[in-house]
Structures are given as structure tokens and as C-alpha cells.
């Protein structure tokens, strides 16, 4: 049987209106054969997790350029764990200092990406993660 496509929910939490990066990454994932559910701008963590749940997504990708990454990632991860999505990958990108990345990583958030990172790195990371974490 052919391998099933990886399903990724991509959204931007909060009020930051810069969605170019999220679109570029979403498109790269599509071109890598993934099925991307694009949520768009100004999402609440609740809405993002509710969408990921209904979509049974393997991965949630957040794009945050506003500096509010700490509360947003924390809240999304919290909701994921509460709603039975703790076994899915939470990743993302934006302007996120290394120190914050480390803190988030300690909370169970996956690798985060920044300006200048090749979208192919994200593709490779997601593929690898999904392969290493097969779902029941």
C-alpha cells in the first residue's frame, strides 16, 4: 500500500498579520507531498487545536513573528495534551530567540525554525519526526 500523506495544520495565532512565511512553508510542504490544512491569520490557540483535532492532523505548525511565541506555543501545547493530541508534533517558526526555543523544547514543543532556514529543512524534519513516531 502506498504511504499515506502526512497531514499538517498550519496557522498563525494572535494578532500578527505577516502570513508570507506561513504561506511559503505551507506551499513547500504541499510540494513535498503533504496535505496542508491552512487556517490563516488571527487564530486563537483553541481554534487551531480544534481544527487539528477534527482533521486528525499529524503535525501542527505555528508561525509567529509578533514576539508572543511563548504564551501561544505554551497554550497550544497545553490544549493538545488536554484533548488527546499529545502524540502529535507541534512545530513552527518565526522570530524566536534560541533561549526561548530551548524553554519551549523543554515543554515538549518540537524544533522551531527562523529566517534563512531552508523550507526543505522543515520538510525533512517533519518527515523524520512522523517516521519516528508512528501512530497507533
Amino acid at each position, binding site marked *: *500500500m502506498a504511504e499515506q*500523506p502526512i497531514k499538517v495544520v498550519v496557522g498563525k495565532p494572535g494578532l500578527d498579520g505577516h502570513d508570507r512565511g506561513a504561506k511559503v512553508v505551507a506551499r513547500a510542504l504541499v510540494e513535498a507531498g503533504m496535505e496542508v490544512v491552512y487556517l490563516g491569520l488571527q487564530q486563537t490557540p483553541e*481554534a487551531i487545536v480544534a481544527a487539528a483535532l*477534527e*482533521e*486528525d492532523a499529524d503535525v501542527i505548525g505555528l508561525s509567529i513573528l509578533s514576539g508572543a511565541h511563548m504564551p501561544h506555543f505554551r497554550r497550544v501545547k497545553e490544549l493538545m495534551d488536554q484533548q488527546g493530541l499529545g502524540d502529535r508534533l507541534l512545530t513552527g517558526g518565526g522570530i524566536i530567540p534560541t533561549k526561548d526555543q530551548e524553554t519551549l523544547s523543554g515543554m515538549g514543543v518540537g524544533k522551531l525554525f527562523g529566517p534563512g532556514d531552508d523550507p526543505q529543512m522543515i520538510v525533512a524534519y517533519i518527515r523524520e519526526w512522523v517516521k519516528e513516531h508512528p501512530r497507533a
Partner: protein
Amino acid sequence: MKKSIPEDLWKAFFQGDRLACARLITIAENRKERVPELRDALANRLGRAVRIGITGPPGVGKSTLTSLLALGMADAGHKVGIVAVDPSSPFSGGAFMGDRVRMEGLVGDQRIYMRSLASREGHGGLSPSTPDVADVLEGFGMDRILIETVGVGQAELDVLECTDLVVLVLQPSTGDAIQTMKAGIIEAADLIVVNKADLPGKDVVLNSLRFLFGMGLTKKIRPVPPVMTTSAMQNEGLPELVAELEKLASVLLDSGRHADLRRARMEKEIREAISQCLWTAYDGLTGATKCIQEKARELVEKAESPYPFIRESCSRVRVQALDKEASNGHGA
């Protein structure tokens, strides 16, 4: 190999757990070999929902309209499932699914369940798994299932085969498109919506539709569909549209047509499953796939008709009812 769907997943599903529903939809979508198991478990819960296809060209507002319809139907006391299909890339196999961007009003609404599907191998406007996904949603308790196709042109008619009612969505300034569309989906619509009625050019579309249906070419086959105008943006015409659809739904249910459609779909499902099963068994016994490959090469080289080979192959087939156990080895 033959691992069944876990009992606790079914239990959670029947208790109304949305994640369990999500996971069963994934099984319907990705694990074709488990569909019989899904059908067995859901059978006694199916048969009452009305499945409504929402189709039309790209960008006419299908997603926005679908979400507003869902809200209207939920307010009328229904539980609504949405299956929104977006196209898969023929090159990468990936898909960009943007329907949720237009459906923000549904967030957190427990009366509604929305799922995006990539069209995958489907070339008729839907994903091949759409009917199975709709079954899961109906089994979950949804009594109105809205099935939104990819943006279609003229003859993407898959939606006719798995819905009870079809809504065709158009927009102003598609006057010329009307002419080219009239031999396809337009004849099959049970209701036509001219959305974005706030834009100029609405009357041109309405006139073309009047012209088309006034000629009576389609009237002989089916009743002339109601034509409604809406503006999702200005929030106009939506309650009327919901009311009209509900009227069509009750006629469908009361007239027995709903049951007829279900029966016809079941017949088709049985025929297809049997032919698939027979083919798998035949191929397993005779190695037909490989044999056909070789034969085709030979026939093309010699510029010969395939029919002598086809007749010979068919004449050798003898159908015999086998014990289920004995036929399991072929992974049907």
C-alpha cells in the same frame, strides 16, 4: 495483517468523542481495506441523513456558503457534518486545503463537524473516500451532511453519485460560462444559487438560467431547479436558502426518493465490491496483471485487437462460491 479497529475507539466514537470520530475518518480515508469493517459497525446508524453536495466553479464562494448553510441548519435543530474537498497535486500528491479560512464561524461549534479532504486519486471533484467519510459522520449522529466539491468546471459529476441533493453555486459575470456549462452539472442541480449577488452582473446570470430552463430541454428529465440569490458577504438570502433546502429535503424524504437513492448507491457499492473481489481472486490465481502486461506489449507491437485474448480469458473463468476463509489469502 488483519488487525481490526480497536474496540475502545468504537466505544469512544459512539459516546460522541470527536477525536474518535476524527480517527475513524482517517481510517476511512487511508485504509481502504478497513472500509468493510466500518460499514459493518455503522450500518444500523445510517439511512436518515440527507447528503447535500455543494458544487460550482472555483472562487464562487462555496466554502463561505457551506459554513453559513451549516450554521443555518444547526440553528434549525440539525447536526451537520461538512466534508470539504480540495484538489491534490497531480505532481507531488500534496494538497493545500484552504476551506477552513472561510469557515471561521464554525470554530468550537459542537453541533457541526468539519473535515477537509484532499481529492487524491479522485478526478471527478471528490476524493474516492468521500462516501465512506460521510458514513462515519452520519454514524456519529449528523443528519445533514454537506459535501463541498473542489472547484469544478462542467462535468465533474462524482457529487451526483454520493449525495441526495446537489446545490450548484454560481456568481455574477459568468454569463458565458453558463452556455458552456449547460450540458453538464447544470442539468443535475436540484437548486442553483447565484452567490455574490452584491456584485454587478447578477441579472445576466439569472437571465441565462431562465433562458436555459425556459427552453424545456432539461425539464423533461428533471424538474426545473429553484434559482436563489445570496450574498454571503452582505449576509443576504441565507435564511431563504436554508428554508428552500429544508423544503427540498423533506420532499426528498417524504416522497421515497431518498430511500431510492440510498438503494441505488447500495447496489452500486455491492457491484463494485464484488467486481473488485473477483478481480483480486482471479489475479491471485492466474497472475493476470503480469500476463496482461506481456500480452499488451505483444498486441501493440503486432497492431492486433485485444478481443481474442479477452474472450479467451473470460471463457476460462468459472465462478465458484468459496468459503470466506479460503479466499482471505488475497488481501481483498
